[in-house]
């Protein structure tokens, strides 16, 4: 006998009811977080229609299918508007992967454990910053609000720890494609981010002593081509999220550091890149420089949460999958999976009187609080830019990139950044290494001295 209660539309009605009542806990059949804490298996929190694309689309789309312009209408409501435009107008293809039900595959292990360990301890202080509920000190690691009840809480999870590691060094290959489909700029760059509080893998505790007034150090430096080699930027984030980070740039040809306007968040760092600092991780600015956070929706969504780590390819390259755009060079063919429940959140740049954007909309997967969709709108309310990040456990078959404890690492895998108004596009591949010998690494101990001081960025350019 078919149980009417769990018919096809049950989850849709459930999410609508949840939004209407303002109840925000994740999970449909039961609460999500306890399941993650107990077994890591989230499948009991959702009916089959939210964990199986075939059930959701009534058989029209199956795991392993390629979504393109011919069948995108079946899943139109499950992707962001820029991805829809890319598929319908630029020949983009995405591959449907199975929904990940083992939560341990969606986090770096230390971060997941800290999240579970510190559940319920996060709170906002009088200034709106995230603190430990009991002592009012800076946050102690993991997602501060694993079951967020407001848009700000959800955003805090992303902003407080971008890459979910205490320290991460990413080797990145960037290609910037113009409206004609030609690659106009190509860069190799390194990106380092090191949290100073909320540490999850630090044996000495959640704080880096002497740096508790900061949230993170972060730097970008270019290793190729020659005309930008050694050009670098250093961002120093204060813990107080009302304040702008200090931003320094370094030009090796002059051996000079340039201090940039602190609110220069909507300009590219080097020519050609369709990426602003404001876009990073969907939460590139201190969270209190934005405001009017609202959860405007909740429901299933397609996002890239697995299967995009190409450990078996030379330098983790995805170039073999390139397609779409006028010259077939725009997109990586990547896996998207049905994410059972996302929060759709909007925020406005209230701290930027000259911001060219009116709002950003972000789709956060409640399983791991990863931003799997991000678009901005111009001040007319027209769709403007997207910053699509794909995440993946760094494991493929028997191959794996493992942490110190032998667990497979988890990180971002690619970025598609698209300005749909001028049709300029950047794609980043998270590579194993880039020219100059820089290698991707997590939780390295010497990152601060090597990459995250003014002296360090001077040295990188020499």
């Amino acid at each position, binding site marked *: 006998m078919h149980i009417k209660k769990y018919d096809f539309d049950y989850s849709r009605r459930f999410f609508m009811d949840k939004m209407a009542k303002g109840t925000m806990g994740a999970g449909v059949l039961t609460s999500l977080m306890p399941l993650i804490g107990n077994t890591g298996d989230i499948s009991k929190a959702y009916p089959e229609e939210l964990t199986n694309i075939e059930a959701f689309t009534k058989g029209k789309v199956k795991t392993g299918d390629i979504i393109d312009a011919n069948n995108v209408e079946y899943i139109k409501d499950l992707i962001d508007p820029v991805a829809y435009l890319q598929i319908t107008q630029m020949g983009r293809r995405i591959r449907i992967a199975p929904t990940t039900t083992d939560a341990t595959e969606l986090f770096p292990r230390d971060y997941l454990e800290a999240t579970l360990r510190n559940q319920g301890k996060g709170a906002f202080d009088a200034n709106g910053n995230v603190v430990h509920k009991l002592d009012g000190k800076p946050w102690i690691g993991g997602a501060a609000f694993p079951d967020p009840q407001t848009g700000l809480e959800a955003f805090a999870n992303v902003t407080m720890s971008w890459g979910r590691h205490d320290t991460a060094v990413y080797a990145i290959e960037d290609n910037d494609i*113009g409206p004609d489909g030609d690659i*106009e*700029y190509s860069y190799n760059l390194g990106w380092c981010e090191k949290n100073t509080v909320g540490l999850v893998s630090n044996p000495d505790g959640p704080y880096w002593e002497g740096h508790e007034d900061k949230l993170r150090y972060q730097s970008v430096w270019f290793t190729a*081509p020659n*005309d*930008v080699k050694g*050009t670098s*930027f250093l961002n120093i984030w204060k813990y107080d999220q009302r304040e702008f980070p200090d931003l*320094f*740039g370094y*030009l090796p*040809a*002059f051996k*000079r*550091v*340039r*201090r*940039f*306007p602190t*609110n*220069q968040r909507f*300009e*590219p*760092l*080097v*020519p*050609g890149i369709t990426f602003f600092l404001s876009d990073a991780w969907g939460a590139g600015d201190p969270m209190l420089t934005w405001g009017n956070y609202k959860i405007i929706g909740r429901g299933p969504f397609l996002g890239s949460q697995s299967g995009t780590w190409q450990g078996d390819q030379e330098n983790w390259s995805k170039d073999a999958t390139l397609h779409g755009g006028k010259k077939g060079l725009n997109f990586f063919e990547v896996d998207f999976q049905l994410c059972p429940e996302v929060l759709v959140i909007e925020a406005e740049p209230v701290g930027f*009187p*000259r911001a*060219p954007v009116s709002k950003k909309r972000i789709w956060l997967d409640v399983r791991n609080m990863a931003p799997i969709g991000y678009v901005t709108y*111009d*001040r*007319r309310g*027209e769709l*403007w830019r997207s910053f699509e990040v794909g995440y993946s456990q760094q494991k493929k078959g028997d191959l794996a990139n493992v942490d110190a404890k032998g667990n497979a690492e988890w990180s971002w895998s690619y970025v598609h950044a698209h300005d749909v*108004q*001028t*049709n300029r596009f950047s794609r980043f591949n998270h590579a194993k290494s880039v020219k100059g010998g820089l290698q991707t690494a997590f939780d390295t101990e010497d990152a601060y001295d090597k990459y995250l001081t003014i002296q360090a960025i001077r040295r990188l350019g020499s």
Partner: protein
Amino acid sequence: METARYRLSRYVIHHRWASLLVFLALTIFFAVGISRVELKTIFSDLLPSTHPFVQTYKDHPNFGNPLTVTVMIKRTDGESIYNPETLQKVWDMTRNIDLIAGVDHDQILSITTEKARYAQATPFGIDSQPLMGDHSPQTEAEMAEFLERVKKSPGSRAFLISHDEKATIIQATFIERLLDYGVVFNEIQEKIIDAERDDAHEIHVAGQPVLTGWVYFYEKQMLQIFGITGAALLISLFLYMRNVVGIVVPVVTSVVAAIWGFGFVGWLGDPIEPLIMVVPILLVARSFSHAVQFIERYYEIYYHVQDKKKSAEICMSVMMAPGILGIVTDAIGLFLIAIAPIPTMERFAVFCGFWALMLVPTGVFLTPILLSMMPKPKNVNQIIGLDGDHALIHAGIKHMLQKVSKLSFGPPAKITTVVVIVLSVFGLSKMLELKIGNPVAGSNLLWSDSEYNVAIAEINSHFPGLNTLEIIFEVKEQTQQRLLKQADPIFKMTELQRIVESSDFPPVATLSFADYLPEANRLFSGGNPKWAPLDHSDMAVQAASGAVLFGTSPKAFSHVTDFVQQNGTVSLWYKDNKQETVDAALESVRAALDEIGIDHDNYRVRLGSGTIALQQSINDTVDLYQWYILGALNLVILISCSWAYRSLVAGVLLLIPVNMSNVFLAMSMVYMGVGLDVNTLPIAAIGIGVGIDYGIYLLSRICEEYQGFKDYGKAIYAAVATTGKAIFFTAAIVLIGILPWYFMSELKFLADMGLLLVMVMLINMVIALIVVPLLVWLIKPKFVSSEDLLVGEGVDLSEYAGGEESLK
């Protein structure tokens, strides 16, 4: 023996219902095409596509910023812009421009944007900050700080703030794919001009999107003028014909021709340029006049024959050859405009040429068919000028023409000949004074006192302005080493600027990517001015380029380099776009290019783009192609008319008056202060088409009359009084139709065309009525007496006479 023309005429009239059905079917076919007609102004299509300047512009459309809107706000009460009220307005306007659809958010520049920066070297490095903080200065301290920052920003002082500190500009570039000119124009009016203009602030807006917006704005006005023109044509038709047939037949045939003309371009898929819509009015008027000529001739015949079908057959038969010849030469005149390689003119030629050609079926065939079906009007005698008491207009015109005709034969002919020769020589001498180009400050599409052109003049008087000459440095083959990061092209740019600036005719300002490098070099080298000069090495240039582009989008420099720094421009600003300025500017730049060379190892230097170069490209083309068009037209007319009259003398005889008309048109333009440009290019061709039409009708009638009178004087007298009347009416009706455009159109383009069309019709009328008969009288050519003329209108109506009186 029955001629082929007569047999065809009889066949058509005998099968008039079937013929009508064919007309109906074709009209339905073309009517369907009308739904695909698009009225659209494409500015780049007004440029001659084969001219090297235009090719340079099309290869590098971003230089000269054609899609950039410049807004100038000017303080008018004596205060400077450095006060809270004005700066708040600049802040608000900058933010509001960002709200306009299609704007490129990365390419908005004013003293309030983050892109307007000052930089200073400090012990801790280079500190680069926006001129303005997160709000416009409100307090004295904030204002003082702002002033200090402006002083440290030479670029802002040169290009964003006027020398007298009473004006500042905001620039916004639009994305072509998203640009809707009408929307941009309306939003600028509403959000910028209406919102911020007040007693103490003038606001002026310029740029191609705004200019196009103005053209669209005036297109609405065009509809009103069309209405007035249509009413004027109908009223004049009514006053002349005073019966239903005389109104219905011209209107129906003209509407059918119009449907075919519009439908044709609809099926072709070519957009119609609304700026040339005055010419279709000419075609409607010409269609009316053809119909009126047929009607008059029809009733002349009917008066004798008293049988509608028979009259229609005869009328069609006698009018067919001169009608077709006149119309076809008219159409060829229009088609030949396509010789000029200006896409708008090519489309115009196809559209109007086809429409004109369709006056053959509608005028020559449909008119008699309809006449044979319509009831006989009561005023036939009046129409053919017999009933003097009741046909004041007709009789008056006839009387006046009879007097005019006497100037062309007999003793007065000698005086007339002398006068014509003297006037022609004088006209020729004046023709040499005709200027190429028709410059006004701003756009020649609009009047010099139009809001847009006033804005251009104001901006030009406060800033380097909008009249630029762009000299493009173009990479031959793209390599990883970007051209504008190499020493040689950068130093060549600087050298070019130096040579031009020190020439006898220096520009008001110059700018290139090279100008940004020394300042970056100075700042990043520690701030001392001695570090500004660049080493002549790729490494030094690359370093300085990197410093310029550090932390910014290449779009911020899209006025001087493309997105990938492979092509750049040297912009030279000139105070105006008068022809003397254009000529001197080009001369000095060509001399400079001779010095620096145009062909280099990996790049070439191309002259040029910008308003100065594009204006010159049009003038060069007009100057050259007017002769091509004129020559081709003369050749076509000579061949066709010589063949039709079986006489080379006839061809030459007809060419003399039309070319004479062209000389007088040029003379008139000199006196009117109008130069020869793209607006006036088609007029000469149209004029010659019209003139030859008149000549053919009149000469044919003279031949016909000569058959009866065997006397040149009497033949001229009769021909001018009859066919001359139709010519007079044609010129009058075109004048009535087109003259309102001159007085009412706020688009100077239309007004210029309208006025010159009126001039050309009047000149051709006078020349046709006087010079054609005068030449016949002086030459007394043999072909006039020939009975074997293709275009002879002769017919012995007594063979068909069934009625009251005879004309003779």
